[in-house]
C-alpha cells in the first residue's frame, strides 16, 4: 500500500510575478541591511556548509570534539549557550558509544573561547568520563585562554588534517549521528550525514540531515533528509506523523485527517513528489528500478 501525501514544492505555490501589486501573486523583498559603521572589511566567505554543529569524531583511538565555526562568520551562527546545549545533547544522546577514558582533542577552530568556557567543556566531558587532553585553536586568544586554564594547547592557523579536512572533501558525508534522546520543541539537529534517533521527535523540533533519517519512535516534528540535494535519501519512522517532511528540495505536509493507526513507514521521492509507503512493503529493489532515469 502506498499512501498519497499532498506534496508541494515549498515556494512554488507563490511563484514570482513581475507586478508587485497583484495580491495573489507578488514578490516582496526586504531592504538590504544598511551598511553598519563597523562593517567587516571583506565579507568573509560564508561557511561552505551552514549545517555545522558540535560534532564528535573518532580517529585513531582518540575522540575529536569539533566545534562549529565562529558565529560571526556563519550563516547559521552557533553561540556559546547553543554550543553548550548541543554538546550536552551529543554527550547524553550518544553516551553508550562514548568509550570512557578515551582522550578527547578539542578542535576549537576559529572560535573565541575564554578559559571559563574551556573549563565548562572539560566539565561536561568529565561527566561522561572523557578526559580533555589537548586543544587546537586557530585564534590566539583562545589558545592563550586554554593555556592559562592549564590545558595543553596547539595553536594552528590552518587545521589542515583536523576538523577542516571535512570541508575539503565536501562529497563525503560524516559518519552517522546516533542520538538516544527525545528531541523537544526548539531543538534543531543538523548533521552532514545520516541521523538516527532512538526516541521521539516532538513537534517544534527539526532535523536537517544530508543523508537519511531514521526515527525509532514517534516522528512529529519537521525533518529534512538529503538536505544537500540528494533526492535518493529516505525518512523512516516507526510512527510517521510529521509536521512536515522534506527530502532534497521537495516538501510535503501531513494529511489533514490523520490515519486511525500508525505502522512503520518510509518516505521517499517518487515520480510525483514525496511518497510514503509501509516499511514492511517498501521494497528497495522496486524503488531503484523505478528511479533510474
Amino acid at each position, binding site marked *: 500500500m502506498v499512501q498519497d501525501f499532498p506534496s508541494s514544492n515549498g515556494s512554488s505555490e507563490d511563484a514570482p510575478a513581475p507586478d*508587485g501589486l497583484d495580491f495573489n501573486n507578488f514578490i*516582496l523583498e526586504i531592504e538590504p*541591511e544598511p551598511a553598519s559603521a563597523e562593517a567587516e572589511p571583506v565579507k568573509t566567505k560564508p561557511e561552505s556548509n551552514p549545517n555545522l554543529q558540535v560534532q564528535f569524531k573518532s580517529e585513531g583511538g582518540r575522540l575529536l570534539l569539533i566545534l562549529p565555526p565562529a558565529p560571526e562568520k556563519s550563516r547559521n551562527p552557533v553561540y556559546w549557550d547553543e554550543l553548550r546545549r548541543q554538546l550536552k545533547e551529543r554527550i547524553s544522546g550518544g553516551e553508550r558509544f562514548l568509550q570512557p577514558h578515551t582522550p578527547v582533542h578539542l578542535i576549537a577552530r576559529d572560535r573565541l573561547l575564554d578559559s571559563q568556557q574551556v573549563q565548562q567543556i572539560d566539565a561536561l566531558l568529565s561527566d561522561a568520563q572523557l578526559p580533555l587532553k589537548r586543544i587546537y585553536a586557530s585564534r590566539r586568544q583562545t589558545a592563550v585562554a586554554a593555556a592559562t586554564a592549564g590545558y595543553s594547547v596547539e595553536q594552528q592557523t590552518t587545521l589542515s588534517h583536523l576538523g577542516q579536512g571535512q570541508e575539503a572533501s565536501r562529497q563525503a558525508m560524516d559518519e552517522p549521528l546516533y542520538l538516544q534522546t527525545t528531541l523537544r520543541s526548539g531543538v534543531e539537529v543538523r548533521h552532514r550525514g545520516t541521523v538516527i534517533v532512538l526516541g521521539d521527535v516532538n513537534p517544534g523540533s*527539526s532535523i536537517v540531515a544530508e543523508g537519511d533519517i531514521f526515527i525509532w519512535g514517534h516522528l512529529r516534528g519537521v525533518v529534512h533528509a538529503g538536505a544537500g540535494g540528494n533526492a535518493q535519501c529516505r525518512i523512516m519512522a516507526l510512527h510517521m506523523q510529521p509536521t512536515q517532511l522534506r527530502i532534497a528540495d521537495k516538501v510535503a505536509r501531513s494529511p489533514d485527517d490523520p490515519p486511525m493507526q500508525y505502522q512503520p513507514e518510509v518516505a521517499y521521492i517518487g515520480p510525483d513528489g514525496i511518497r510514503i509507503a509501509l516499511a514492511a512493503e517498501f521494497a528497495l529493489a522496486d524503488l531503484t528500478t523505478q528511479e533510474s532515469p
Partner: protein
Amino acid sequence: MSRIIVMTSGKGGVGKTTCTANLGMALAKAGQRVAVVDADFGLRNLDLLLGLENRIVYTALDVLAGECRLDQALVKDKRQPNLALLPAAQNRSKESIKPEQMKRLIKALTKVYNFILIDSPAGIEMGFRNSIAAAREAIIVTTPEISAVRDADRVIGLLEANDIKAVRLVINRLRPAMVAAEQMMSVKDVQGILSIPLLGVIPDDEQVIVSTNKGEPLVLEEKLSKAGIAFTNVSQRLQGEKVPLMDLSIPQDSFFTRLKRLFGM
C-alpha cells in the same frame, strides 16, 4: 497607509496570541489584507492557533539571512486568502533578531498589507522591544486580574516612552457572573487603572480552548460563539466603524443576561 499594530500585555497567558489570530482573521474576513507577524521567537504559537504549522517552510530569520524572499516566507491562509502569517523561528532565541531588522520586515509588508498585527512575546525584554520597534499602534490585552493589569500598566508606560501613543485596550476572559458577584474586577475597575480607550471585552468562553486545539480561530465558525462575536466587534471598531460607544457595552450586556440565564439566576 498601512496600520501596524502590536498586540502586547506584559504578562503571559492572557490571550495575546488568541486575540491576534482572531482579530487578524476577522479583519481578513472583512476584506482587509492582513499580515500577522509572530514576534515570539523561540516560543512561537501563532502558527498553531491558525492551524498553519505544517505549511511553514521559511521563517522571518531565513528572510533576514537572505535565504529566501519575504513573500516566500509568508504562509497564506487557505481558508482566508487575505490573511498571511510571517512565522518566527522556533530554534532561536529572542536575541537572534534586532529591532532594526524587525523594522525592515514590517516596512516591506506595508507595501502589500493594510493591517499588520504583531504578536508580541510576554515580558518586556528583547522580544518585546523587537515587536514594538515598527509598531505605530498598540492593543493591550489584559485579563481582569490584578497581576495582569499591573503588568499592562507597566507596558503602557513603556509604549508611551517609545512614542506609541495610540494604545487601546482589550479585556479578555471576563466572567460577567463573577463581576456581578464582585469576585472579579469589572471593566470599569480595569479601565480606571489603565485609563486608555477600550476596544472591546471578550467574555471567558470554553470554545476558545476548543478552537486553539483545532487551529481554527473562533471568528471562522458558522455560528459565532460569544467570544467569536466579541472578536468580530473588536475588529469592526478597529476599522473605525462608527460603532457608538453605547455599543461597547452591548455585547457584554447580552452575555451577561445569557450567562445569568445559563446559571439560572
